[in-house]
């Protein structure tokens, strides 16, 4: 049987932090994010990737009636679109209108919440679903977690949240000699009762009756995403018909090519011929009778019996380790994530949309990625792509932001008085609030560790 081809592209931009100083902490109005930098990076990527790639995709969708693609757009990407990328947003809407583009579900803030807070994870998935519905008129039925971070439990959670499928990395150590090109199922085990309760409180659609896992074919995906312009690679230069031959040799039900959308024009520059390569693929596939499918179609068309994909520990699509080490590999990364989720209760009690939004933007996985040092020892020159000088600079800015946010949340919490006492304490609470603000601008709770 000829396999179908499933394209899924990740579209995401974080809110990078500015050079926040310790003297600004506790002033009550510090803005943590580098508005100028975020805008300029977004516009640069929009011109090099999002706009030309969307134009090309539209052209392909119009020319080939069977061509299909899937995207996952993070909530923070959509927010940046609304701030300075209305043209980009409009071009995604045009793609959505073709009816042959599927949008996947993810955590709104492109976060690592699955590691620390099931409750916030559910909230964010819901927020994201609503955002996708609002922008594109679709309700996602397939879930992909941040950076394809995955383990068994997550498939069960996604199922109870109403999703029919989930994406994951096709890791060799879990596949053994099985092919990544067929839908798998998670092992069957019950979630813990408190997990069930949390999900039931937060969920917005009925549980799905089935759950399949679609695995990324990392060799073929990475041939395009990472090796396409590598002159030392044996496959260089890669032509569309050669690549199609490789796809067909791989066989199976569906070959899942999952990659960052920025592959087109940003990671692989236009002059590498990446757009021409992409333009040629559907033409060749059309001629050779190869179908393209979206993730939900792959699952709908699957009639075979699925094998179990047993991911006991976390896997992801990052680096050669394909684990969590890119975000949680060292002490400062762990300390930062612990401190971040240590604020969850305060955020909830604050009832402040503004503070909750800031807390959300600080959850974006990129902040932790920038603190990664795993290839640094032994003088390895490999450096992570980062807007900052060093992982320590990333941590300095981040810990300042958390320190300040904690103070704002605490000040806010003190201003919130339980209803029964509200009348009685009205004046004193206002005074406390004033006092807190006044003190906040002087005191720098330097003892608090973030």
């Amino acid at each position, binding site marked *: 049987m000829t396999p179908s081809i499933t394209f899924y592209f990740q579209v995401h931009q974080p809110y990078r932090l500015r*050079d926040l*100083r*310790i*003297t600004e902490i506790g002033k009550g109005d510090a803005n943590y994010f580098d508005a100028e930098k975020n805008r300029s990076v977004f516009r640069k990527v929009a011109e090099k990737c999002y706009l030309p790639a969307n134009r090309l995709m539209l052209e392909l969708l119009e020319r080939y009636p069977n061509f299909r693609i899937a995207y996952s757009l993070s909530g923070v990407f959509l927010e940046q679109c609304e701030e300075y990328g209305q043209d980009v947003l409009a071009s995604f809407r045009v793609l959505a209108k073709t009816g042959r583009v599927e949008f996947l579900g993810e955590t709104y803030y492109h976060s690592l919440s699955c590691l620390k807070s099931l409750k916030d994870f559910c909230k964010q998935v819901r927020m994201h679903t609503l955002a996708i519905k609002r922008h594109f008129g679709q309700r996602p039925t397939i879930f992909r977690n941040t950076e394809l971070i995955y383990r068994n439990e997550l498939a069960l959670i996604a199922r109870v949240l109403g999703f029919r499928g989930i994406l994951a990395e096709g890791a060799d150590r879990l596949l053994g000699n099985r092919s990544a090109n067929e839908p798998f199922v998670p092992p069957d085990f019950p979630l813990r009762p408190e997990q069930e309760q949390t999900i039931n409180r937060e969920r917005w659609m009925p549980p799905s009756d089935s759950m399949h896992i679609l695995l990324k074919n990392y060799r073929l995906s990475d041939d395009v995403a990472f090796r396409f312009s590598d002159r030392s690679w044996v496959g260089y230069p890669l032509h569309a018909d050669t690549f199609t031959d490789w796809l067909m040799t791989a066989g199976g039900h569906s070959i899942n090519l999952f990659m960052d959308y920025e592959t087109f024009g940003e990671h692989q520059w236009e002059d590498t011929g990446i757009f021409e390569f992409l333009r040629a693929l559907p033409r060749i596939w059309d001629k050779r009778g190869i179908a393209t499918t979206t993730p939900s179609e792959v699952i709908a068309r699957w009639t075979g019996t699925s094998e179990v994909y047993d991911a006991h520990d976390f896997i992801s699509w990052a680096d050669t380790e394909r684990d969590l080490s890119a975000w949680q590999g*060292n*002490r*400062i990364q*762990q*300390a930062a994530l612990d401190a971040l989720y240590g604020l969850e209760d305060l955020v909830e009690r604050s009832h402040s949309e503004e503070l909750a939004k800031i807390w959300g933007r600080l959850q974006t996985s990129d902040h932790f990625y920038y603190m990664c*040092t795993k290839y*640094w*020892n*032994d*003088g390895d020159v490999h450096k992570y792509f980062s807007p900052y*000088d*060093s992982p*320590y*600079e990333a*941590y*300095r800015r981040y*810990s*300042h932001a958390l*320190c300040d946010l904690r103070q704002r949340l605490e000040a806010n919490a003190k201003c919130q008085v339980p209803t029964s006492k509200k009348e009685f304490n009205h004046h004193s609470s206002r005074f406390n609030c004033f006092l807190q603000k006044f003190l906040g601008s002087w005191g*720098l709770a*330097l*003892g*608090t*560790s*973030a």
Partner: protein
Amino acid sequence: MLSLLSVRSKLQPYDTFSDYSARAKAEIISLPRNAQELYGENLGEAVEQFTQLSVEMTKDVNPDVIHCHDWMTFEAGIRTSRHKRKPLVAHIHATELDRTDFHPNEWITARERGGLLAADKVIAVSGYTKNMLMRHYGIPGDKVAVVHNGHDREHFPVQSVLQNPLTQERNPFILFLGRLTVQKNPWQFLEMAKRVHDLRPDVRFVMAGDGPMLGTLIDRACELGLHDCMTFAGKANREEVRSLFAAASCFVMPSLSEPFGLVALEAIEHGTPVILSKQSGAAEVIQHAFTIDAWDSEKMADCVLTILREEPLARQLRSEAPHILRRLTWQNQAGNVRSIYQNLITG
């Protein structure tokens, strides 16, 4: 076999002759006593006398390569190289621009340039110095090889470090260690201390080292109201240095222009978190550190305060930074120099 020749000179290297020969376990050739008193009071004359003497003394030697270190030895190197028709290596540990905050003595820079141009290969102690040679001396990049300085870990008794009264100090303290000269930028250290002191009055500061700026710095410290928290410790001996590093919460090297900065390697050997000037060679090799611009005392203070506030950060800097020392041994770095010789000899 290494042969050393002892001469008494105004040109003072960092190491004393006896220290160096003891470490190198070298054969020592002593000059007759009267020949040791060679040099006059004038630096130019001293260099000229050194040059003549060294050419004279090596006339019967048959080297494969002539290797000379910094400008004072360049003329001797050039003459020997011409005479023997053997390749010349000029090794740069510091330029006149580093020493003078870019207000050079032109006579010296002319000598530096002469040696760099005459050399068949130049070795710079850092990429930072290589850039300096390319930008300010017009030396083509492919002529300059970078061999970073190294550091051999010492095995010292923990006991002696722990028994020092400094390690009993309760309050966190921030350390400066170096000569009190313009190049080492102790002035910005005081500015930084003031900013830290304003937010954390419990923090103490130690400036270890001696130099022409001492008086000015003491005055400035008082002016900034730092008299209660600033200690001028003077020149510290090896044992005191160890104790200072071991007890310090953080070491700051704010140098204006530092070709390498070996003191930073010593600091990380002792597990002290370091904040390094970006205008230094050490910042190229020590990854697990904060780097700041030499003029930015505000950011320097910010990094110090972050290290003091964030225990996991301090712990990571302490444990991770020293890994680089496994690679950066003198043995390894000498190996790099040897392969440069090899290339010159085989042409």
